């Protein structure tokens, strides 16, 4: 069965993620999401049928993270002023290692049609995955064309365009409320 893998490290672009998932699920396409933590996605309204692959637990098990907890136990100052600064730089590497032990090994990549990189923090992991799986279609948004002809089976059809009616309460600003004034 075909599926699409979304990669979103945080929820800064949650609306795009949830709408993309809704579009695919409505057409019977499985959706997987690679992210750090699951909890915030529930609040963002992600359909519970989306299969989550979280990196937080795998990150916690990484030797560098274990070392961090030890340092913290010994000295909070050493942790804050020394370890935390270095770990911040190494974290993308740790996250990729965490991804390798989770989604990279566990996913049946033969069934993945597309890889969608959904936020800025996800770009490095998306690039690693794209390098490993050269057959994959990769994008910053879903190529909807392959699914356009599929029959819509669910009633939770997302808004395809800005003009379409929205299916659920929105958190965006209405017309006339501007980041800038128009």
């Amino acid at each position, binding site marked *: 069965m075909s599926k699409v893998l979304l990669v979103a490290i945080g929820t800064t672009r949650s609306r795009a993620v949830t709408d993309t998932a809704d579009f695919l699920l409505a057409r019977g396409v499985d959706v997987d999401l690679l992210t750090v933590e699951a909890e915030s996605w529930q609040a963002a309204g992600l359909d519970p049928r989306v299969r989550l692959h979280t990196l937080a637990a795998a990150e916690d098990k990484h030797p560098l993270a274990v070392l961090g907890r030890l340092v913290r136990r010994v000295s909070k100052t050493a942790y804050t002023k020394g370890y935390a600064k270095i770990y*911040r730089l190494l974290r993308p590497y740790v996250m990729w290692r965490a991804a390798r032990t989770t989604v990279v090994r566990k996913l049946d990549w033969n069934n993945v049609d597309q890889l969608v990189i959904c936020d800025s923090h996800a770009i490095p992991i998306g*690039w690693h995955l794209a390098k490993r799986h050269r057959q994959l279609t990769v994008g910053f948004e879903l190529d909807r064309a392959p699914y356009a002809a599929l029959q819509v089976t669910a009633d939770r059809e997302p808004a395809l*365009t800005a003009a379409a009616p929205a299916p659920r309460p929105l958190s965006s*600003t*209405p*017309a*006339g409320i501007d980041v*800038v004034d128009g």
Partner: protein
Amino acid sequence: MTVDKTLAVTTPWHPTLQRPFAGSFVQATTTAVRDLFARIDLYNTEDWTGPADPVQARMVRKAYAALTTGPSPRIELSAHRADEGYWVTDIPTPVTPRKHYADWALSHESALRPVLSASRFDADVVHGHVGIYGGWLAHRFARPTARVVFTEHASFLGRILGQPRSRAMYAEVMDRADAVLCVSEKLRNELLGAFPGHAGKIQVVPNAVEIEAMPVRPKPVTELRKWIYIGKVAPTKGVPELVEAFALAAKDEPELRLTILGTGPLVEPLTARATELGLADRITFHDSVPPQRVFEFLHAHDLLVHPSKSETFGMTVVEAVGSGMPVLVTRCGGPEETLEGLDGVAGLLIDVSEDPQVIVDGYRRLAEGLGLLDPGRARAELVGRYGAASVARRLAEVYGVGDSTTVMEPA
């Protein structure tokens, strides 16, 4: 009219899946001029905010470049034809959260460069939106012979010009531009103050607003019982003063109701304040709604109160007047221009004040003179100023294309 020229539009705001209402004014303005050109390509460089840490940010940039550049890039950012009849290329632009406008502009430049063939806009006219973003990209990528125009909309123009690097970049954009458009007199004055040597090319041309398409309320307003505020629920918008003003007015008029439509940092505190005032059942807070639903709310209320402290345009006010609704608006910048000559016709203008009594007094004067308003005339005036055909005629002159008298009226 022979239509043989091409237009490139570059903007940081245009509707996307993540931000379906962003840049609707850019969309409306571009749609208004579509018949003036053989082809219009719009490049939407959308901020994707990433890590603040410089090392992590560099990793993101390198991975982004590896995915999007090279002889056979893994991700090709290509154009799609929008329903509005022009071509759109959405370009995710990794940026850091640090508020350095120069860095942001350079990030947009890096993201756009690989998308353009020969690193140039292949267009006769290039129109950038927001000087430091679209204006900068127009300056960097327009052909030497192309006409470069940019529109300044930014309410944060002062902050842009307050940073030495972004001010220097802005000065380059001003030098290159053939015409500089401001959506309000307030912004024009700000630019004139900063760049007096370019006074000859700075003019006010508002964004197109599809007022003709706005649904007029089925029944005219005969009493001002149901107030509505639409916008960000923030101190700069005067919402706390509105709640206090409503409480004062509501003491004597038990039938008054207020709806606050929008999100923002003051939703929770003001909800608590409404309860404290014993008005929890008379003040309703509602989450934001998409643009097409705004008119449902306007039609279901009697009066739009817009108590903002500062506004460069004030789209909500235009929408309310376009729908035939009276407005009570502060003289906060943009509304004095949008409602010029319409004080007492579309509604009432009041002073910006921290005293809620000013809103109450304005409401009472408006209620007394309600029969003197002329919502039909107010709407017609706004169509003349901001309607698609009117703005397209102005832009045709600015672009130097076509015969500005033959711009088609909308169907």
